[in-house]
């Protein structure tokens, strides 16, 4: 057949293949896996070359990030000021900013002296003492706007220049504008009206970059650094412009990942949306896969906008918000299902998860479709009964493991209280009931890093080190499966990627250590050498 066969010996190959969980050699031909086993199993296919650069590495299937957003690539055009360490698309490691002074210092450092200064990912929940205010940000600049967006997605800080430009004063009596003891606005505010005011006053605009080529390149690089070979953009606008950008950028051999955009379904009528997705499916290729639909139903738990059932939020906050009237969500789901499409549904709170399970049950009774793989995304508060229904209905869940670490303490103290916080992200229950499951980062909400995500599901530790829900821990092997084959299943790509077996695409994550051998507490720290995508070797650093 004229194509070269390359056999890669490795310290260990973890296949996710039940018939042969581990191996030492993998043969690649024409971008696909010819076979996996020991050398003798593979030499019978004819001439081959041995490439031993992975001889002391551990090979896993390339990681599949089943819930991320290319917005990650937009935000990196601004300055990261989060509490936790994070790596940018250029590989630069940004240490977490652990105090207000560190945030201010970093913004001063990056300031070019012109235009607005924008920081993102600010996360003061672990700071002790006072909150950041306009005086802090005035140390960055007084003649220009300074904006800091919080990681929670609901708050922002601005400097005096922004307040002055917008005429926000002690007399401003608007929801979401925080005032100090002196009655003056502190510069901290919440809600979208404040965000609009700050963007308008400063001239900053993160939106016109979404879906653009540079954001895609940044997103691809961030994924590559984490060992990801397939990633979703799980709420894609899919306008003619952003679709054209995807078609230009992703298929290029130098672009490091496969991208699965899920059509964001709340902009147009479901009939128009279904027709658009179906027309785009003809444009799918090996690296770019159209066909998924994403519906938003509620908000976020940490923002108190998720819809949750009785007894509601632990701190007494009112119940959250729907993204659209429930009957419209129901109708839209029916239209997409009837069009033969697979629907992913953002449901953070259990009321939202229940509404969509009710909907799926009614729809399937009317129009059964085997192997639909409709998937609940986040599904953070599923109890056993909801999971049993998911199993009975053939619904998959992709749970937000990273929340245990990033917001676990808040869930314990404020949003859900102990009992419900301990059983968030119920991986062990899903496993025991046989519900197909995956786990995700929801980047940019938290960083793309599947080994970290797996660590969260295995260790279930909050940022303060407390274990949340000992009984819902799963094994390293199960977690690794969730970040590969488990996620691939939810994308209907498990016949192509997610395991190392004959016929599948040669997508590998190349690790420096064996995740099954290191102590599970160190899973997140395993260095990544690089990836292989469709047989193309993609080291992180020049060899």
């Amino acid at each position, binding site marked *: 057949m004229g194509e070269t066969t390359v056999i890669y010996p490795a310290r260990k190959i973890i296949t996710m293949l039940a018939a042969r969980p581990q191996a030492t050699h993998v043969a690649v031909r024409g971008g696909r896996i010819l076979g996996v086993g020991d050398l003798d199993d593979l030499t019978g296919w004819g001439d081959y070359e041995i490439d031993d650069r992975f001889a002391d590495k551990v090979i896993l299937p390339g990681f599949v990030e089943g819930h991320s*957003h290319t*917005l990650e690539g937009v935000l990196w055009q601004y300055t990261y000021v989060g509490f936790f360490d994070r790596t940018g698309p250029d590989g630069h490691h940004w240490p977490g900013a652990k105090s207000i002074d560190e945030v201010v210092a970093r913004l001063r450092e990056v300031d070019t002296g012109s235009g607005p200064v924008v920081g993102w990912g600010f996360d003061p929940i672990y700071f002790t003492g006072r909150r950041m205010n306009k005086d802090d940000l005035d140390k960055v600049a007084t003649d220009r706007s300074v904006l800091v967006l919080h990681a929670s*997605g*609901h708050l922002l800080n601005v400097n005096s220049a922004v307040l002055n430009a*917008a*005429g*926000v004063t002690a*007399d*401003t*009596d*608007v*929801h*979401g*504008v925080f005032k100090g003891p002196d009655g003056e606005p502190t510069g901290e505010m919440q*809600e*979208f*009206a*404040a*965000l*609009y*005011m700050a*963007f*308008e006053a400063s001239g900053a*605009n993160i*939106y016109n970059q*979404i879906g653009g080529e540079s954001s895609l390149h940044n997103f691809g690089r961030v994924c590559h650094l984490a060992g990801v070979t397939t990633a979703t953009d799980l*709420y894609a606008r899919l306008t003619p412009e952003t679709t054209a950008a995807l078609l230009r950028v992703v298929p290029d051999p130098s672009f490091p990942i496969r991208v699965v955009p899920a059509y*964001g*379904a*709340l*902009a*147009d*009528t*479901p009939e128009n949306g279904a027709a658009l997705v179906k027309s785009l499916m003809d444009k799918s290729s090996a690296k770019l896969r159209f066909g998924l639909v994403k*519906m*938003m139903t509620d*908000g*976020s738990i940490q*923002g108190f*906008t998720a*819809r949750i059932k009785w007894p509601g939020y632990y701190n007494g906050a*009112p*119940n959250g*918000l*729907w*993204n*659209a*009237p*429930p*009957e*419209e969500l129901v*109708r*839209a789901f029916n239209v997409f299902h009837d069009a033969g499409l697979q629907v992913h549904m*953002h449901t*953070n709170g259990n009321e939202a998860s229940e*509404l969509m399970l009710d909907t799926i049950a009614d729809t399937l009774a009317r129009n059964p479709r085997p192997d639909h793989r409709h998937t609940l995304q*986040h599904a953070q508060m599923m109890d056993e009964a909801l999971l049993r229904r998911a199993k009975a209905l053939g619904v998959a869940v992709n749970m937000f493991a990273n929340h245990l670490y990033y917001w676990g303490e808040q869930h314990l103290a404020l949003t859900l209280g102990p009992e419900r916080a301990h059983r968030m992200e119920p991986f062990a229950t899903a496993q025991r009931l046989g519900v197909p499951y995956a786990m995700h980062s*929801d980047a*940019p*909400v938290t960083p793309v890093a599947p080994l970290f995500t797996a660590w969260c599901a295995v260790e279930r530790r909050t940022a303060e080190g407390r274990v949340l829900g000992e009984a819902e821990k799963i094994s390293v092997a199960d977690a690794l499966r969730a970040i590969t084959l488990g996620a691939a299943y939810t994308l209907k790509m498990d016949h192509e990627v997610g395991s190392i077996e004959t016929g599948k695409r040669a997508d590998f994550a190349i690790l420096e250590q064996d995740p099954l051998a290191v102590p599970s507490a160190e899973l997140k720290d395993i260095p990544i050498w690089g990836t292989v995508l469709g047989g193309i070797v993609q080291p992180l650093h020049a060899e």
Partner: protein
Amino acid sequence: MPAPVPFTVLGGYLGAGKTTLLNRILAAPGAGDMAVMVNDFGRLNIDAELVAAQGGRAVRLENGCVCCTIGDSLVESLMQVMAATPRPARILVEASGVADPARVADFARLSPSLRLDRVIVLVDLEQIRARCADRHVGDMALKQLAAADVLVLNKADLVDDAARTETRAWVEGRSAAVVTFEATRADVPLAALFAPSERAGQAPRDHDHNRNHDHPHDDFDAVRTWSFETRRVFDRARLEALLDGLPPAVLRAKGFVDLAGEGLMTLQLTGRRWTLEPAPDGVPRGQSRLVVLGTPGMPADADLRRLVTGAVTGSPAT
């Protein structure tokens, strides 16, 4: 700094008549260059062509957003609308059926480039009590009542007097609205809707809270309007004669007219000047639509109808 753009919020649950009212507002000639921001997720709810015919712009809002939080599509869309040259003369946001109109109104309370007009909340008189008790949306339906400056108690024809009185009292007890209308098919005096909110929330700045203050955009009062539709074609010579002979009380006319032998044309009339140019692609053929604006002294509707039909031939549209 340019004058702030009046910003109107239209809220209420599904089925309360938001679309009907929206289309009524759009059909009124005072609408002018209004940017109308709507949710099309459930169904297409306004006639974009009608907006365009009035010189306005239709903007599609999206509730879901990438950060799994809610509402930043309005941030994005509003930035686009306000960056356009010229800025729209007025912005009307249709809040989704499950949005809190108060949070949408906050945009104008905070931004110096916007002036908050009244928050209009439509209520389905027949359904509202059940809606407010609904386990999924009851909390939001109540927030919507609370946020209203103007309550439009719609579908009054569907309930008897006793129920209407009782429901009205029940709703008003849950709202701080300054004006309540009972209406059928959302037929309410538009001028009362487009006034600065009594609850703008800002210290007097560029806004004037005086309700009687004359604002250049509040022209719903002073202008009379008349509209006309036909599926028959116009005769060019007779139409030109009509346009040349209109009294000065007719200030503006806009629309699409199907001319015999020529096809659909866009008509624009301002004062004494008018143009007829081929209508752009995408405007549905087969029908002529005309909106006429004038001072209260403009000929009566029946007279206008007689004048205009005089320019129509007996032939159906092409």
